[in-house]
């Protein structure tokens, strides 16, 4: 009975998923309601620049509807209060709200993107983050879980170093809990406690394995400092994360710590139900890492490929895995390139293509069908390049499996918008008369 039931559910779920999962960013949470069809808007969480436009951080909305007279144009901007070191963002699981995090001020700005996806409306700000959470600061982004948001942080209010926490808020903005990353002194029972550094960055869930994986970067003292100065300070450069942590997702308890030197950043779980692995890229050592379940079901981590020539200054910062788990796009800040890897064999990725995107590049977002990629330029306000190298853009490309072909290019400096950071996809098809559900 159980097998026949599971088969029946699987058939129905597959039939249903074919209808819904046609186009949406591949980096999103499995708990997030999907866009039905192609994305219509790209939201860009943008850092304000003093003297440019109003100088404030802002949410910029770009129309990407095929055939629209406004295709590739900015259709709305909404500024928030001041400059907060705009960084990552995330929708609530029902895709009604977009939460935008500020790394410097630890404020989170909540927008309604449901009532009118073309014109997101500011709703409220979560303030007093450090006081409320027991000292966590530097909210890195917002990751949707059922009815709540998981907010991985980068720093702490006590010494503004890299020891930090995962924080949970309910969808209506009420604080729920703080989970500190394991340290040598308090590893929470995790294996390899001697490796624990307490640092954090990304947090991603693989539901069917009850697995929560976190990565690690650096604290406020470093990410708010000029990059040139920082790289010349050998003592400061010791204060970067070199670990990833596997957690029991349901209990939020750390289970195993992995040594992953050089600041492992974005985490991308494979989507295939038989693929028990995730990729990450270590920024400072310029390597692709694989965290995977071995033949015994034990989680392991190993570096599986170099990303460019690390000595030349690559700094891979964002990765995007295709929905079929076969292609991985890697954006590298220092050399401004997007590299494409064939990861059909996850243990042995092979670079198959690279393209110069700009003088600097940070985030890369991919549509669910793998045909459209969007890239932005800004890493951190004090880490972005200077002078003519400080290009600030959103560049859209079509991917045909062989090369990236430009579709449109928005100059965020000429438009007086600021530094273009993270992108998320929106659609009117989540409106009152269209699907918003995971059912």
């Amino acid at each position, binding site marked *: 009975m159980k097998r026949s039931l599971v088969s029946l559910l699987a058939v129905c779920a597959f039939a249903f998923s074919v209808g819904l999962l046609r186009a949406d960013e591949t980096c999103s949470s499995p708990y997030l309601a999907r866009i039905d069809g192609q994305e219509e808007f790209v939201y860009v969480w943008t850092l304000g620049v003093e003297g440019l436009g109003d100088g404030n951080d802002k949410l910029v909305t770009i129309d990407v509807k095929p055939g629209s007279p406004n295709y590739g144009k900015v259709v709305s901007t909404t500024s928030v209060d001041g400059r907060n070191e705009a960084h990552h963002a995330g929708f609530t699981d029902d895709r009604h709200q977009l939460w935008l995090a500020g790394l410097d001020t630890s404020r989170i700005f909540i927008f309604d993107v449901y009532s009118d996806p073309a014109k997101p409306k500011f709703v409220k700000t979560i303030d007093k983050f450090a006081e409320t959470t027991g000292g966590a600061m530097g909210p890195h982004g917002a990751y949707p879980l059922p009815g709540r948001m998981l907010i991985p942080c980068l720093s702490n209010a006590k010494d503004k170093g890299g020891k930090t926490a995962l924080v949970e808020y309910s969808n209506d903005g009420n604080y*729920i809990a703080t989970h500190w990353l394991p340290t040598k002194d308090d590893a929470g029972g995790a294996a390899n406690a001697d490796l624990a550094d307490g640092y954090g960055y990304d947090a991603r869930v693989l539901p069917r394995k009850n697995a929560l994986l976190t990565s690690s970067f650096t604290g406020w003292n470093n990410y708010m400092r000029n990059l040139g100065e920082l790289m010349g300070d050998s003592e400061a450069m010791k204060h970067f994360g070199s670990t990833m942590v596997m957690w029991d997702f349901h209990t939020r308890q750390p289970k195993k710590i992995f040594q992953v030197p050089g600041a492992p950043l974005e985490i991308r779980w494979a989507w295939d139900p038989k693929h028990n692995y995730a990729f990450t890229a270590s920024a400072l050592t310029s390597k692709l890492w694989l965290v995977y379940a071995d033949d015994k079901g034990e989680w392991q981590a190993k570096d599986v490929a170099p990303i460019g020539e690390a000595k030349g200054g690559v700094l891979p910062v964002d990765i995007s895995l295709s929905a079929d788990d076969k292609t991985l796009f890697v954006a590298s800040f220092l050399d401004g390139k997007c590299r494409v890897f064939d990861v059909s064999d996850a243990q042995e990725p092979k670079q198959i293509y690279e393209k110069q995107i700009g003088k600097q590049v940070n985030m890369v977002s991919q549509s669910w069908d793998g045909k459209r990629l969007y890239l932005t330029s800004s890493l951190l306000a004090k880490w972005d390049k200077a002078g003519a190298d400080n290009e600030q853009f959103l560049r859209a490309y079509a991917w045909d499996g062989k090369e990236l072909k430009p579709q449109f290019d928005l100059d965020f400096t000429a438009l007086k918008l600021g530094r273009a950071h993270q992108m998320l996809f929106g659609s009117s098809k989540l409106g009152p008369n269209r699907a918003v*559900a995971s059912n």
Partner: protein
Amino acid sequence: MLRAVSLAFVFVAAITTATAGEIFSRDADHDYDAPTPGSYRLPVIKVAPDGAVLDSNGKGERLRDVFRGRVTVLSFIYTRCAAPKACPYATGVLSQLHRASLEDTELAKNLRLVSLSFDPEYDTPQRLATYAEGVNGESAGCEWRFATTKSHGELDSILKGYDQAVDRRSNPNDPQGPLYHILRVFLIDREGRIRNIYSSGTLDPRLVIADVKTLLLETTKLSKQ
């Protein structure tokens, strides 16, 4: 529409025929061991919002009274739903919890299941009574209540309070059913506070039972202090 309703019953019926042993088995969709009850914390998310509902006999009651005295698993459903990962799945899991309570006196005495409809026009108390008979023919085991609301006025404030998104599909004859919704199931402690929120990815009966027993142990520890 009849096809959708029939499909919903097929799913629920298939799930409810699982044995207790199958309920607790590990499978490809839930490939992990459930935690030991009491080995972890369930932080308070918020006070479970109150509201006026009708039971399957048409009697009016308040949710805060419904929740009193037992740990409650509250599932928002509508009986016309035929989306396989939504209401039929949720009701199937509640049915598994109910079956588990037939063999566990602690659950039988301390657990309450509530299926609350967000389709008051169709899901009248009479229809819910029929639905209840279809998915739960047992009189033993834990409580399982079925409720609806008198009108959308009462329903809307409840949905808002629980942040439960529901919309009408553009095609009212959609084979999945006429409504879209995010699957949400709530764990509510004896003091009427939400302690966990499940969706299709996390609604595993083994996890729910571990959570229920964690809350029961919490109450036991407090009573000893």
